[in-house]
């Protein structure tokens, strides 16, 4: 591969503006998929649209050169959380076609909560990074795996260890909740 003539500002397949355009387009797709997710009356379709939304977010991460996080997104969210969700749906009755009882008639409340949550998130992020300039060049930028690892194990060890306790608690909780009762439950 002979790409010597390239410099940082040169054009690959995606020029820097190309990256930005793609980012916006993918963002729109994510938004659309998310809207369909919450409005569709077919439960499993909602889960599948969620896959599109989550996958789109992974692409956004990629475009922000957060390579590692992007694939974490795919592995954890698309590959397992959605499957967990689908399992959950199939545990209950998830019919093919519309579920008439999927609408709890709390649309407006839900919309309000969603807007509030989105507003809070945007405000928090905007406030936190107001003047911080993050270099998104992939060459050992903050998104590269090695850099993620080194900052994690240099500065964020305690939260990391606390996370293991959290995961353990979640595990134990799930087992306790799902275990068969030793007696009773006979009908």
């Amino acid at each position, binding site marked *: 591969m002979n790409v010597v003539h390239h410099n940082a500002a040169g054009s690959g397949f995606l020029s820097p503006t190309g990256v930005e355009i793609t980012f916006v387009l993918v963002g729109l797709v994510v938004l659309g998929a998310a809207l369909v997710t919450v409005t569709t009356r077919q439960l499993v379709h909602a889960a599948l649209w969620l896959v599109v939304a989550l996958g789109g977010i992974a692409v956004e991460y990629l475009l922000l050169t957060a390579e590692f996080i992007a694939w974490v997104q795919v592995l954890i969210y698309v590959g397992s959380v959605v499957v967990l969700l689908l399992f959950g749906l199939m545990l209950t009755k998830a019919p093919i076609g519309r579920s008439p009882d999927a609408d709890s008639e709390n649309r407006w409340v839900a919309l309000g909560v969603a807007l509030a949550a989105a507003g809070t998130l945007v405000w928090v992020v905007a406030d936190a990074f107001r003047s911080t300039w993050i270099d998104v060049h992939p*060459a050992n930028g903050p998104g590269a795996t090695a850099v993620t690892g080194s900052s994690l194990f240099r500065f964020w060890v305690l939260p990391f260890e606390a996370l*293991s306790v959290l995961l353990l608690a979640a595990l134990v909780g799930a087992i306790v909740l799902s275990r068969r009762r030793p007696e009773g439950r006979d009908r």
Partner: protein
Amino acid sequence: MRLGADSGQALDSLRKQLSKDPPGSLDTAGQRVSEGRRDVDYFHGYSVVGLVAVVGVLFVAAALAGGRLLRPVVPTQEKMLTYECGVDPVGEGWAQTQIRYYVYSYLYVIFAVDAVFLFPWATVFAAAGFGGTTLAEMFVFLGFLAVGLLYAWKKDVLQWT
């Protein structure tokens, strides 16, 4: 949320140290690749990956379109019936799942989150300035999860019957 100034600086120096010997950027000839080129390579690389996905979609579409030209379309009542070993289907095509499937996938989600942390760790733990301590940290982390696995084992969650 905000990175402390000192940690940001430390990160910077770390980045410089890593960029001196970026583990992934060495090809066998030992050539070092410049940062600018890596920049372009990153987007170039992932656009090729994206294009592969597009090519795949095109391939599937072409295969199905080709099939459409070749195949007959003769739907009959019996053909469209759900297959149930030759007899008419009984009830709906829906069967209640067992809760243990759910528990297994739950276990997986938890352990996958754990496994994900192994990867950034794997790339740095042997580097200068990490070593034994980082190894111990990871073992503590894995230890907690091993306890969880042992608990699940003990509670017969991993047993089917």
